């Protein structure tokens, strides 16, 4: 193995690219869980976003319209989940799992005619002068707009949750839906909006895969990214800044294993491909073993059904 083949600057830029879909999906799911809803359908919403964004970008010839379409597609799919769980009071766990399976099937169906096509080219956002800086230039200033949007979204989520009444209401609904209802907040409506935000974010994450990172449509191309996003939310103990850290950590392991494969590391490729998933499992075990913090981190009403009694 020749580690000198791994260029640290290129590695870091590729980490940002590999992590961005995870970051989108995870920050969206975090908001959903903050509102007290456990949507296990992230994987399904991502892949539907991936094909919706791809198809719309190909048909319209615009990557931007593609991303908008992906967000709308993800939100619509999440609304199916939302109506099932919030209006018809279906259990959130099977409904979320069903959403994943449904999304995988639906995307495969829609994607039939799009296999093997190249999407319209996306441009990177070259900031004049800044992007020419050595080292920092390629790392910070030569990405596509979506990378910056994902970082902006994390910052905005952090700010809204910490400093605005909207954020306080979302947290209140997730913490104690009975009390929030008693204070006159519309629990179901707030949760539906949060679910749709989560769906839109997952859709963007999926479209980032099919339009920028790969860029191509293949069936099942999310390959478990949605599950990793769910793990990141728990890893982050429902905090936006830690979601960023988690997404870059998990994405970083993914990027690194690709580089190691390319560098001809003396380990079977399968082990390297497994590594992000193994890390996910290990991290989840470590976190749930940390008993002292477990009681305070998760929103207290997470996954519970809410039915207004009067």
């Amino acid at each position, binding site marked *: 193995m020749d580690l000198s083949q791994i260029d640290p600057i290129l590695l870091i830029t590729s980490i940002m690219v590999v992590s961005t879909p995870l970051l989108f999906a995870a920050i969206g799911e975090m908001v959903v869980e903050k509102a007290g809803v456990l949507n296990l359908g992230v994987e399904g919403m991502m892949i539907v976003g991936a094909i919706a964004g791809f198809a719309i970008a190909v048909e319209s010839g615009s990557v931007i319209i593609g991303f908008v379409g992906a967000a709308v597609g993800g939100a619509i799919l999440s609304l199916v989940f939302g109506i099932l769980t919030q209006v018809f009071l279906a259990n959130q766990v099977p409904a979320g799992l069903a959403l994943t399976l449904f999304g995988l099937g639906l995307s495969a169906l829609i994607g039939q005619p799009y296999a093997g096509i190249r999407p319209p080219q996306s441009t990177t956002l070259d900031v004049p002068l800044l992007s020419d800086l050595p080292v920092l230039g390629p790392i910070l200033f030569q990405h596509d707009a979506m990378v910056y949007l994902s970082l902006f979204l994390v910052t905005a989520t952090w700010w809204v949750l910490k400093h605005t009444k909207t954020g306080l209401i979302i*947290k209140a609904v997730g913490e*104690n839906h009975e009390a*929030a209802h*008693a204070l*006159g907040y519309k629990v179901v409506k707030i949760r539906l909006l949060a679910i749709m935000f989560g769906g839109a974010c997952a859709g963007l994450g999926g479209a980032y895969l099919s339009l920028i990172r790969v860029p191509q449509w293949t069936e099942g191309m999310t390959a478990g990214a949605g599950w990793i996003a769910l793990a990141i939310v728990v890893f982050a103990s429902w905090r936006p800044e830690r979601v960023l850290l988690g997404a870059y950590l998990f994405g970083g392991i993914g990027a690194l294993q690709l580089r190691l494969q390319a560098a001809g590391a003396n380990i079977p490729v399968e082990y390297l491909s497994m590594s992000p998933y193994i890390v996910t499992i290990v991290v989840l075990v470590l976190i749930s073993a940390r008993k002292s913090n477990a*009681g305070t981190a998760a929103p207290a009403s997470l996954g519970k059904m809410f039915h207004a009694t009067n």
Partner: protein
Amino acid sequence: MSDTAPNLLTVNALTKAYPGVVANSEVSFTIAEGEVHALLGENGAGKSTLVKMIYGLVRPDSGSMTLRGQPYEPSEPRAARASGVAMVFQHFSLFDALNVAENIALGMENPPPQRQLAGRIREVSETYGLPLDPESMVGNLSAGERQRVEIIRCLLQDPKLLIMDEPTSVLTPQEVDILFETLKKLSAEGTAILYISHKLEEIRTLCDSATILRLGKVVNTCNPREQTARDMAEMMVGETLHVPTREARDLGEVIVKVSNLSVSSENAFGTSLKDINFEVRAGEVLGIGGVAGNGQDELLSALSGETRAKAGAVHVKGKPVGDLGPNERRSLAILAAPEERLGHAAAPDMSLIENALLTGAIRENLTHRGFLKWDAVKAFADRVIESFDVRTPGARNAARSLSGGNLQKFVVGREVLQRPDVLVVNQPTWGVDASAAAAIRQSLLDLTSKGAAVIVISQDLDELMEISDRFAALNEGRLSDPRPAQGLTVDEIGLMMGGAHGMEVAHVDA
């Protein structure tokens, strides 16, 4: 003052029916500005529904309300708050993981920025003698402090009418005094207070007038200062009260001996038990008081076997049982009924028959080589329903479908009928109406006359004084020395309970 003050709220013939039950039927009353008005009634009398209509949580089927002469039809709590009606809930509508200021901001229409709000919270809390630190996490507060959060949340809106739903059920006597001072001050400033309570003595000291509800109808109005508590209780119940009688009994040998029991709590917000010592003799009732959250749940768990301690920490009839689990203790006739009815004492979605089986299997011989004897189980469940007057269409109904009071009768009755030598109950009459509560207390006393040792953990001091032979109080996981209940004064009890909880450390400068 109610003679001269103008009317604030007039409730005119409000009616609200739910499927199968009329919660309120043609209820009318008026509250004057600055008046403290009591709403009295048993469980299920319709008090909660009535105040929910006033607060906009429930819409009346018919009838009308006027507030300061204007028609008043709140469609949601927000509208009620905008009209100057505020409410302090019986089960606090607070968020454990948020801090005091955030909790208060959630109850306001246009909360100022956090820093400014924190300043106003300090200001109001000092004016009304309700010390509170805006930065502290609500999950770490005592029940009394939590109630202050609710009250300050209401006061910041400058309400004209403050509704209080059983505000004193979780407070020490000293905290009650502080609350009453606050309420009197508010009333003197012209804020009307609608005060819901079972506690007649409180109503007599605090309230200017009272409306008494029974089965959804107004049965009487009175001036509580001119009535005896007993008269009001009888108006409420509509029959003569049966007060438990205590037969003179000889105390037998020591049955339960707890020595140096220390258990750390499994819950992040729980209280650890520290070095608890007491003895209970055959035929004796030990009453354990204390403000909620001072180790009551943990003590019950340690006695029932849900949490295990060192073997020698608990002796029953000379046998060390501290490390035995619940079923092993049941087979030794040590039984317990925890406070939380749904989810702890009973499995909500299982039928009463199945719930009877869950704790009765061992003592009542309801299994045979691992198979269930359903006929015997059904008979046992029916016996509980029959003896404790549990009102349900039948034993096949889910525990969840019973009202709180009826389920309480079931879970206490289920243990009492298993002929325990030791019975530990937490809040045996919580949410049970006066006559059923008397029946439950009587059944506990009957047990002692058969030689059982009974430990009653409760927050209702009147109840403890009524049935206990000796009294002790829990404070932050420590148990005071048990003292004979007879002759204890309220002040002494308050001191045993740890004084006004958190009053001295006012944190106002934090």
